[in-house]
Each structure stands twice: as C-alpha cells, then as structure tokens.
C-alpha cells in the first residue's frame, strides 16, 4: 500500500473508518463488546508500516487495491448488498472469502492485516480472532438451554462415513458441569481437559464443587492469552458450558475471542440460526420448564438445524444436569423414545427443504448400539447430502 494515497484524502479515510459496527450485531455480537466503536485514523498509520515486509504492490495494481478498499467499505455500509456476481468474484478472488452455506452468508475479505493475531487492522479489528469465530460456525450444531433447576446440552453428531464413529462433542467436566463444543474438536478436547483439571483441583482444595461462573472466567482468560501472543493462535472452538451453582443453573457461551456470555438458551455451529429462531420464540418459558419439556425443546431445536432430515438418536447427543441429577449423557434408547414421543404429537412443523440427494442412514457406529436405531438402520432412508462436520 502506498504510504499516503493521493487518490484518497486523509480526512475522508478517517470518516469512513469511524463507521460503527452496530449493523453487524446479529452475527457478530462480540464486536460491540470487544471493540471500541471509535476507529483510529487509518491511512495515517501507513508510513509506520514501511519497514514491515508487506508485499509492495506493482504500480499497475494500485487501482485494484483501491477497489478492494472500497469493497471493504461497501461491506460495512451495506452488508446485504452482494458485490459479488459470479464474474466479479473472479476478479476479486485475492481479496475476499465467501462461504457458500445456506444460512450464514457472511463475507470476509482477505486483507493485509489478517496474517498475524497480533496485528490490528486500521479499523481496530483483529482479523485472526474473527476468523477463529468463523471456525466455530463451520462445526456442526450444538445447542444449550436452561431452566431454573436444569441445563440441557444437545448436539448434532454426524459421522464422516458409515465405517467411522462420530465425533465426541459433549464432555462431562464434573458432576455438576458439562460442556458442548462446536468448531475444531481437537481444541475443544484440550480445553475440556483443562476444565476437568480445574474442577478437580478446586474440589481437592475446598471439598466443594467449582462454581460454573468462575470456571468460565478462567476459560475466557485462557482464550484471551491466545489472542495476544504472536506465537499462539486463538482456539477455534466455541464452548457451551452448562452447570449448577449455589446460585442456580447456568449456561454460558465461551468464544475464541476470550469473551463469554450467559444465556437462557443458545445454539452455535452450522445452521444454528434455525435453532436460535426456534429458541427465541420459546425461551421465556424455559425458566419454569420441567426437565422433560426442556429436553423436548432441545430435541426440537436440534431438529431445526437438520433442515428436513429425520431426527434420529444416532445422529444427536443429549446431556442433562440438574438439581439432584449429576451431569450425564442420555443413552440412545432413551433419546429415541423421547423423539418418538414428540414426533407423534408434531406440534412444530419442521423446516421443509427438498431432499438434495440420497445418502444411506448412518449405521454401525463404533460403540453405539445400532440395535437401538434398528427401525431406521435397517431401511436406508433418502437423506439430504452430508453436511459439514
């Protein structure tokens, strides 16, 4: 980037950079809380970056650079406008990353500030952290809801092939805490191990269960460290932590950015928007819900994320923790019975999507009782195309 662009007056740049991020709120709530709305002067910083080994563009491409810059600004001003027709996309392929999933149409553009986690963009963003949040959206859905006395965690478990087992996405941390993950499951596993270790150490010293709120803060601080070291990368996993405290039942969401929020109900991962919409309609009743109603709501929300595919206990996992009930994962038979019970009633019509293709139902998963899903596994059903795992 030329140090001071003669084509863009400095004061104009300042104006353009100081746009607020509030319109990005629905998909990126963390931006409101984590970043200052007032951006620093962008182009004024350029001279200081001379020494860095940023690629110097050839003279002819400065036109392109300016266009891409305007692209960035276009995105901020009008996120709904799609600047990319198919032909334009080819021209700007160096600078933008567009994900083609049905629900989450977020456009992230490549830029020169996204190589390092320790590099700020002129607009005051840490792009590596934002990309880590994107990784969470790539994982399969995880849902959590809580009432006054119980917390239910549910997740969609799809195996890569019929031959393999599915990924473990729900972990017991202690008798009173459990976590569901979405994103890079390896990172999730490591963080679960950390949580278990913290819970056990606290119990050893104080003979008392670790309060969930404190565990979540420790987790968030651990994630924050990775956003501020040049030799680390942020954890690419979002965690839904559910547990019991002396102050009641709690559900928290931990981001890769190091933020955490408490929720009545939440969903993360791919196609989670459908589940969130369902939960938003119903969450006001959750506080007083019974355990059974809560589990039913979790299953229905899970079904929403499947978008037409039949909900079977072999592709989802449910875990419960409550007063007098230690954290445990429900076994397949129980879950299948619960699914059958409410599918007969069918109070909510599932989102109707045409079947995109045929795929035999997942069967013979390692360690899973295939006999439990006997009625489905025996007859391969036409399913939608396999989703990202």
């Amino acid at each position, binding site marked *: 980037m030329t140090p001071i662009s003669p084509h863009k007056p400095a004061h104009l740049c300042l104006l353009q950079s100081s746009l607020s991020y509030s319109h990005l709120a629905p998909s990126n709530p963390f931006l409101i809380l984590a970043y200052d709305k007032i951006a620093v002067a962008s182009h004024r910083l350029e001279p200081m970056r001379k020494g860095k080994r940023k690629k110097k563009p050839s003279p002819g491409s400065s036109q392109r650079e300016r266009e891409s810059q305007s692209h960035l600004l276009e995105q901020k001003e009008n996120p709904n406008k799609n600047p990319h027709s198919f032909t334009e996309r080819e021209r700007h392929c160096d600078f933008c990353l567009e994900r083609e999933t049905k629900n989450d149409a977020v456009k992230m553009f490549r830029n020169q500030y996204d190589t390092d986690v320790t590099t700020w963009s002129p607009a005051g963003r840490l792009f590596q952290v934002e990309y880590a949040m994107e990784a969470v959206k790539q994982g399969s859905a995880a849902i959590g809801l809580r009432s006054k006395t119980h917390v239910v965690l549910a997740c969609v478990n799809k195996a890569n092939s019929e031959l393999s087992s599915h990924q473990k996405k729900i972990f017991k941390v202690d008798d009173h805490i459990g976590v569901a993950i979405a994103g890079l499951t390896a990172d999730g596993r490591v963080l679960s191990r950390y949580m278990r270790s913290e819970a056990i150490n606290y119990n*050893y010293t*104080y*003979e*008392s269960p670790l*309060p969930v*709120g*404190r565990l979540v803060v420790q987790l968030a601080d651990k994630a924050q460290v990775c956003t501020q070291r040049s030799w680390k990368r942020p954890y690419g996993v979002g965690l839904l932590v559910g547990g019991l*405290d002396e*102050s009641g039942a709690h559900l928290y969401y931990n981001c890769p950015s190091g933020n955490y929020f408490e929720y009545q109900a939440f969903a993360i991962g791919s196609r989670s928007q459908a589940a969130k919409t369902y939960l938003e309609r119903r969450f006001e009743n959750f506080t007083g819900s019974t355990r059974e109603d809560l589990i039913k709501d979790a299953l229905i929300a899970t079904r929403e994320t499947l978008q037409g595919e039949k909900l079977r206990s072999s592709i989802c996992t449910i875990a419960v923790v409550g007063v007098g009930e230690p954290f445990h994962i429900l076994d397949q038979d129980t879950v299948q019975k619960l699914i059958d019970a409410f599918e007969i009633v069918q109070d909510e019509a599932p989102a109707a999507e045409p079947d995109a293709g045929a795929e035999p139902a997942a069967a013979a998963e390692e360690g899973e009782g295939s006999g439990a899903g006997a009625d489905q596994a025996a007859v391969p059903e036409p399913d939608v195309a396999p989703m990202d795992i």
Partner: protein
Amino acid sequence: MESNQSKPGLLCNPEGSQRTLYPYVTGTSVVALKYKDGILMAADMGGSYGSTLRYKSVERMKPVGKHSLLGASGEISDFQELLRYLDELILYDNMWDDGNSLGPKEVHNYLTRVMYNRRNKFNPLWNSLVLGGVKKGQKYLGMVSMIGVNFEDNHVATGFGNHLARPILRDEWHENLTFEEGVKLLEKCMRVLLYRDRSAVNKLQISKITEEGVTISQPYSLKTFWGFSAFENPTLGAEGSW
C-alpha cells in the same frame, strides 16, 4: 524454606535452620460446640512463654469471611501467619464478585491442605485449629491439627480440652441447645480447664457465629472457689522445714 531441604547438614548452615522445631509463645485450649442457631466457641486470652504466663490479652479467635470463625491453640505467630493466608484467600474470593462465597466447609478444607502440606515439608504450623461456621442454615464445626488430621463433629476441643472438656461435652451436649445453655456448658468446661490446666488464665472470651454473623464477647473472668478445707491448712498432715 525449600532450599534448606536440599542442603545436607543444616547445622553447618550459618543461617541455621528455618523450620519450626518448637513452639515459643503458645495458647492453650479452645472449646467449641454446635447449638441451635450456630456455633459457640470459647478460648482464654493467655499466651505462655514456656511455663511463664507472659501475655494475657491474646485474642485467639478471629472471624474469617462472612461465614466462619477460627480459633487456634499452639504457636501464636503461626496463627497470625494463617490469618494472613486466610485474609488473602477471602480477598480473592470477594474479588470474583459473583454471588458465590467460601463457606466454613471450604475454609476448613483449605486449612487442612495448608497444614498437611507444611507437615510434609517438615515445617509445620504449630497449631490446632477449630473452624466453625454457618452457611445457608447449615452448621459446620471442624478441627485441624498441626499434622493435618481433620474431622468434623458436634463439639470439639484442642489441647488439654480434649482430655478435660470433651468428657463433659459428651455427657451433657444435645441437639438444639439454646444460647444460654450453650454458654453455661462452655463455662463449665472452661472452669475445669482453669482449675486443672497450668497454662490457663482467668480471662476468657466466648464467641458465637450464626447466620447473621460473628460476635466475640468482651473478655471476662470466671468465678472460682478455693475455700476447700484441705487448702486451709495445707501442711496439716505433713509438717516440714520448708
């Protein structure tokens, strides 16, 4: 402290040993019991320097956080160090500011860990501790010794109190003592200790902890009776030249 462990021949070390080998200024027994609303604890205010009753205004019971009361016998300086540890513990607990707080059970267990760890390093905190408290209606009374032995009971005592006070408590303690009954029972135990324990002084405090909080009484003395006929002419049966 740790470096002393790795050096052989501690006595050759010009700094000398840094471990606790003997207690110097010590407090005597602490007696405590559960009653209807919480815990009652009694301790006298003496600090002995060996066999001399040197300090007579030592407070051996202190509140810890919102829910607990700690009483100690043994080395007074080690008790003060423990209070500093607990101060820091409670401070960090409060700094979380999240509606959770450490109750008597948690503090008791923390103290057990501290005492046991120090014992393992051969550098004990030379105390016997009594930890009592009430949290959310649950009464808790426990004891930790200098080697990390810990237990919970309805009535506990340290030092001489184990031998002189506990038999009385075993006979006369029952559930749901009123405050007056509890105080009377404790005073009975303290009187026996005053007569029979040579390191007891006649200046004691009684403290109580309930759901509302901690109250430590002003120091006061027990009435004693020495008018036994055998004391009137002690040398009656055995005259001697001195």
